[in-house]
């Protein structure tokens, strides 16, 4: 009903200063949480993309005969965990090395013989692209005759996965604390409004208004504060991110992310606003219930 909306905005106008403070603090706390969320989502995306082109290199012993290589190739290729496989011969490996590191190629010249081993570059099936299963698979392959070594970016992936785990934990903890802070701030703002209008509230009661009818404008007020706060926090985050991107050595580059550091997708942004709204409602409900208990 129009009445409730009008009352809610009248309340907001009533104590403008505290409203501004409440919105600013809510925005700040939600922005802190947003930093975590941004980091988390981006690392997660990074981990997913790493898993996607999860490459394992199987180095062959130098003493393997040519027909044994093709036999081995057949065995590995038929393994259910292997999606695709490319054979890189010793010569190919040398050429690749010279191409990639032209300055160092003279190092190899001195050795006379080609020191680089032949290898299979294996792309694993999606089901195997997690650290524990890769480890198991690699152990099995190492046992095959003619295989000298199996290498993959194990530590990197494992580190990233544990880091994401920690971030999830920290995010929950920080999120809970900051959510509580937002609720408290909004609750005290609403309490001020309730206090300023306590006589009007009493009159409303006396002419037969139900507590729910009286409460709705205050809950709306909290919701508006929370929503504005979270919108503001999104603006802060977006601004901060753009600013950081302009700096040399931006975090995206430091972490070696070609994809760059992304802002929240639209759904997550909307969710943030919704979270702010719900926190605001919760804050005002706390105050209203508090006051209801004080005198019925």
């Amino acid at each position, binding site marked *: 009903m129009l*009445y409730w909306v009008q009352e809610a905005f*009248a309340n907001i106008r009533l104590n403008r200063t505290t409203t501004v403070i409440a919105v600013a603090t809510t925005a700040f706390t939600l922005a802190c949480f947003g930093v975590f969320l941004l980091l988390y989502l981006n690392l997660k995306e990074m981990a997913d993309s790493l898993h996607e082109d999860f490459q394992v290199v199987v180095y062959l012993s130098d003493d393997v005969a040519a027909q044994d290589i093709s036999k081995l190739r057949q065995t590995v290729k038929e393994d259910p965990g292997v999606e695709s496989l490319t054979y890189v011969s010793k010569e190919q490996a040398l050429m690749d090395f010279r191409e990639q590191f032209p300055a160092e190629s003279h190092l190899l010249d001195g050795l006379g013989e080609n020191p680089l081993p032949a290898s299979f570059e294996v792309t694993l099936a999606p089901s195997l692209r997690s650290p524990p299963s890769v480890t198991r698979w690699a152990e099995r392959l190492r046992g095959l005759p003619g295989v000298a070594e199996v290498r993959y970016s194990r530590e990197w992936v494992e580190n990233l996965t544990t880091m994401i785990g920690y971030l999830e934990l920290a995010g929950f903890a920080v999120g809970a604390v900051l959510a509580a802070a937002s609720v408290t701030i909004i609750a005290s703002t609403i309490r001020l409004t309730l206090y300023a209008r306590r006589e*009007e509230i*009493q*009159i*409303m*009661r*006396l*002419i*037969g*208004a*139900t*507590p729910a*009818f009286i409460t709705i404008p205050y809950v709306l007020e909290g919701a508006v504060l929370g929503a504005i706060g979270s919108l503001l926090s999104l603006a802060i985050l977006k601004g901060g991110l753009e600013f950081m991107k302009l700096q040399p050595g931006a975090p995206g580059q430091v972490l070696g992310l070609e994809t760059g550091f992304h802002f929240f997708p639209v759904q997550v942004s909307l969710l943030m606003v919704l979270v702010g709204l719900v926190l605001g409602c919760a804050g005002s409900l706390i105050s209203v219930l508090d006051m209801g208990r004080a005198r*019925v």
Partner: protein
Amino acid sequence: MIQLFHVSKYYDRRPALSDINLQIDKGEFVLLIGPSGAGKTTLLKLLFCEERPDEGQILVQGRNMARMRPSDVPFLRRTMGMVFQDFRLLPKKSVFENVALPLLVQGASTFETRRRVMDALKAVGVEHKRDHRPMMLSAGEQQRVCIARAIVNGPIILLADEPTGNLDPDLAAEIIELFKAINARGTTVMVATHNRHVIEQVNRRVVAISQGKVMMDKGYRE
């Protein structure tokens, strides 16, 4: 309609009302008189459930006020009208909005609200001030707005606390006539006053209280 049994109310352990017994039937017009501080307002507050009795039982429309759930109180109040001694108008709302409030909280339609509010404002003679804020009105005009708000939803019981305190004799007589008319339509009316003219004009049951006790309960002088 209204029954009080051994009702007492204390403020800071000093009795404002002590051992009040009173029975008011449907359709009665009762004047409540007594010196300042006698407990008239306290009694009306108890009937309106603004305060709860410390001792005794109060039945209003057959419902026990002491045992009523808080969630039922608003619905009881919607069947009653109260003219407060201190007006209790919302300062930031216009006269029209103030009088419309009892209808608004019940979810009455805009059309119905408009009709009833204008009727009530006309009945007390302040319809020309409907867009003013209460602060811009004289005390007498504020009092009449408060009366309009009390009668706007056609209450079953009308309680009026010193409703003519700020009115000149002619206006006071007019308001009492209005109450009589409302009473004639079946509404139970209780008016607290120390205005002698009112007592003479009404010529109905008079309950006199002093220091929280009923001193006299006199019926019609017909």
